[in-house]
């Protein structure tokens, strides 16, 4: 039982059980995903998988779960793909307007707050968004977890989605503040690999980004099947 469930008084405020329904069969485009991000001494690593599942059907293996809000801000996608994409594009618009009006780039704190306040306004309407807003501003590296019930947390390390528990296992074991870029990227890659190995909702490939003071950089797309054989080499016969 969820002790923290909000008491919905009227039926109109019932949480929307999203998903297409045909008779008794319900297809849920659900939160099958693993997204993670962590700060370290030289930057921020953002590592996500690329699977979209609809129940037991893999709808796509090439989903872009990192949304590029602007050259200095990234957002990850977990939950409803349309919700994440749409609202993060709205966020891009707001960030750009902020920059035009104030002649300076928006801070990560302000950007994540704008999104969190928008989502809070839609609380109870069935939006499904679990995102991390990542960027670099004049206060340094910024990492915020924002979700559809209006939560907004700042932190050094987050993993979101159905595979997050597996990712946390790897991250919490190997995470250190002092890492080189390569060590940090390898940690991000490994954590996603382990999540995709065990979680059915995550898989296909890993997209890696690195955020530095001069903006984010796309490091690469790594097929998790290849990663598997990389980490578990088959002995030569």
């Amino acid at each position, binding site marked *: 039982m969820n002790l923290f469930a909000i008491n919905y008084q009227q039926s109109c405020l019932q949480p929307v059980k999203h998903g297409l329904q045909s008779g008794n069969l319900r297809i849920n485009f659900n939160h099958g995903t693993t997204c993670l991000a962590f700060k370290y001494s030289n930057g921020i690593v953002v590592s996500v998988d690329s699977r979209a599942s609809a129940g037991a059907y893999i709808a796509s293996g090439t989903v872009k779960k990192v949304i590029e809000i602007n050259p200095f801000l990234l957002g990850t996608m977990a939950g409803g793909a349309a919700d994440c994409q749409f609202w993060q594009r709205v966020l891009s618009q707001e960030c750009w307007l902020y920059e035009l009006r*104030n002649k300076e780039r928006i*801070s990560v704190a302000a950007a994540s707050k*704008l999104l969190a306040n928008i989502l809070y306004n839609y609380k109870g309407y069935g939006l499904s968004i679990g995102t991390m807003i990542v960027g670099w501003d004049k206060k340094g590296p910024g990492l915020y977890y924002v979700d559809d019930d209006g939560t907004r947390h700042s932190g050094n390390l987050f993993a979101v989605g159905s595979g997050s528990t597996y990712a946390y296992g790897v991250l919490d074991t190997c995470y250190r503040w002092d890492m080189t870029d390569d060590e940090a990227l390898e940690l991000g890659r490994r954590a996603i690999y382990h999540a995709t190995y065990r979680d059915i909702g995550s898989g296909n490939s890993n997209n890696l980004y690195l955020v530095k003071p001069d903006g984010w950089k796309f490091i690469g797309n790594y097929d998790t099947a290849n990663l598997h054989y990389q980490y578990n080499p088959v002995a030569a016969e």
Partner: protein
Amino acid sequence: ISQKYIMSRYDRAITVFSPDGHLFQVEYAQEAVKKGSTAVGIRGGNCAVLAVEKKAAAKLQDDRTVRKMALLDNHVAMAFAGLTADARILINRARVECKSHRLTVEDPVTLEYIARFVAGIKQKYTQSTGRRPFGLSTLLVGFNVDGTPHLYCTDPSGAYNEWLANAVGKNDKTVREFLEKMYTPESVADEVGAIKLALRAILEVVQSGAKNVDLGVMRCRDGVPEWEILPAERLSALMAEIEAEREAEAEKKRARKE
């Protein structure tokens, strides 16, 4: 009677263009400002100063309740010239906006932002039905997060500009001409220099005496902004110094003539 029917009484715009392109209501508002008591603002090297003319209070009036300088946030202060009641409304809205900005952006307002906000409200009232423009000009001083002091001035039309030194209200032209002559970045590099320049400027048009002038200083100590309204004794002492310096300059001029 429906709400809509009643509201139609306020459907007419009051500020409309004249054939030769003037907004007379705005210009009349600017006239109202010219009748208000003088306010002077100076941006120093490490501080920002506001000086206002204090109108002589009636005998039975508690003059502490009449304050022409208001703190909008702990790093922004405002002085104005014009209708005091209109100022109260703007001050309230600006105070709320300062706090609201801190909440949504997790950062204090920059002076440019709050000047733009106040100017935006004023402009809205020059383009709304049933309303008249605000009859005041404001001087906004303060420090941005990056530690730099700034001075902005807004007027009833909704225009805003940044200034190094400016005056609004009665005799603002006289004071501004004085400032244009006497302002140099070196003379206001330290706090005392900036305060003395503000006092000298306002004493051009106001009778000397601590009871006729209010002076406030916004300074920033180790990144913490501090607003101080100088006590009367300090004001008197500074005015005495200025008097002495004026005497000395007059003596020198006389000596040179002979």
